[in-house]
């Protein structure tokens, strides 16, 4: 079962790469533009840290680590699971029917159905920022890989929750997009500012804390408690998103759309 799944995953990724390489120069320009886009945002924060020195105990090195975690986990999500963003469209138009009759997991097929080559620029940005963070070492690199995999699973769960709104609310594409972007925006702030109620919100309604706060803390000063908190948060949100997805499927009535795939 797992072998078949991996084989299908690799096949889809190979196809996505082939499609991107059809116009190699365009693909590379997009990667460069993505990096420019990321660094212009990072530049803004660099300026702020230049002016203020530190924010609640965080310096720019810590912020660089946050950018490394955020960019690498987002790249993993965008390259391998971005198809979830089109789920509301499939639900609204009845296009989901085509996936439901497939002999493989419909959720995985939808998730793999889209990939954006430009997001390789996020990987590059992430690794560059890691080297600027001042937390370099084999152990921290291993932890970086581990926590970004967990964070990308969390992104998958959050996007699935946002997209599954379409089962219950009409025309919810933009609502889901905004919820997802809100989480990413929340995650792009220095985690040191989240104390008190802000911390509660960042771990519940907008779970940005599990996306960056715990991953960054695990790398900065490893503790099993932080790693277990991260694992627990990811597991809870993944379970919740799969539950909502299952309930949504029960709620879903076909769009009676005729199509061949």
């Amino acid at each position, binding site marked *: 079962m797992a072998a078949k799944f991996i084989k299908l995953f690799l096949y889809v990724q190979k196809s996505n790469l082939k499609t991107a390489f059809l*116009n190699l120069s*365009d693909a590379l*320009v*997009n990667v460069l*533009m*993505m990096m*420019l*886009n990321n660094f*212009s*945002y990072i*530049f*803004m924060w660099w*300026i*702020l840290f230049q*002016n*203020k020195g530190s*924010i*609640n105990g965080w310096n720019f090195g810590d912020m660089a680590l946050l950018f490394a975690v955020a960019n690498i986990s987002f790249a993993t999500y965008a390259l391998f699971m971005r198809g979830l963003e089109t789920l509301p469209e499939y639900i609204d138009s009845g296009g989901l029917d085509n996936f439901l009759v497939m002999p493989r997991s419909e959720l995985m097929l939808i998730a793999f159905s889209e990939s*954006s080559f*430009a997001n390789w620029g996020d990987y590059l940005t992430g690794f560059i920022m890691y080297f600027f963070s001042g937390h370099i070492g084999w152990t921290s690199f291993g932890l970086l890989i581990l926590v970004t995999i967990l964070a990308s699973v969390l992104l998958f769960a959050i996007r699935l929750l946002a997209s599954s709104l379409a089962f219950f*609310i*009409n*025309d*919810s*594409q*933009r*609502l*889901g*997009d*905004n*919820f997802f*972007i*809100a989480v990413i*925006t*929340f995650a792009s*702030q*220095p985690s040191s*500012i*989240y104390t008190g109620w*802000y911390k509660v919100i960042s771990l519940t309604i*907008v779970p940005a804390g599990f996306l960056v706060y715990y991953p960054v803390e695990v790398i900065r000063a490893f503790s099993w408690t932080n790693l277990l908190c991260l694992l627990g948060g990811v597991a809870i949100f993944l379970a919740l998103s799969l539950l909502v997805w299952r309930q949504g499927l029960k709620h879903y009535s076909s769009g009676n759309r005729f199509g061949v795939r």
Partner: protein
Amino acid sequence: MNKYAALYSVSLKQAWAAKASLYGRLFFLFILIFIYNHLWEVIGAENNSLELNRTYIWYLLFAEMIILSSPRADRSLFNDIRDGTMAYYVGKPISFFLMRCVEALGSMTASFVLMGVLGSLATLLLTGEPPFLWRHFPIIFLMCYLSSCFNVLLTCAVGLCGLWLASIRTLSMLIERLVFTLGGGIFPLSIYPDWFIDIAKYTPFYSFYYLTIKLVYDFSWENLAVAVTLNSGWLCLIALFTIFAYGRLTKRINIYGG
């Protein structure tokens, strides 16, 4: 002209009816205000400058009203060019480009007004008094609305770049980021070094966003006159580009589809 007014009205009503979309934008706006209010509070407390969050949160509100209210006109125009929809409309007694622009303006207006009213109330609750005098509020609101219209035109111009590019996704994202950096979309340009402001001055983002939104905490008739003059100049340049690109596009329409 009546047909464009009718399109504007229909689009505005459609946007008003799409409650889920409006609530999504409002949710994002509230999250932004909530996060950055706290960020500026923390920075203000560290620097003994408690007025910091009041000034910058009102600035952020107006900046986000301009940026968030704009619909994804670039993507819809790009798709229309690629899938042949434009070819279908090009023979109709209406300018396809103006039609899409006016539709986007209608949609933008609904979001802008709703975010303006509810966003101002939320910000007022968080900060108390705004940094401007209430008698200047209608002028600031109107100037920001005009900037939002320019933003829609800029977005449509990006959509027209589909004539030369296979995908406009990253170009759109890049423009968004330039709005945030060169236009001071999140942090006002006053915190940036002089050399950066000197570069920003040569871009439309400086006047469309920063100079206009700065009126929120630095209102003067002189600043208003500078913003109006520069915005008019950049508007002419962008309009010229769109006329040129649309002219080229209509000539190549037989290649792309129909």
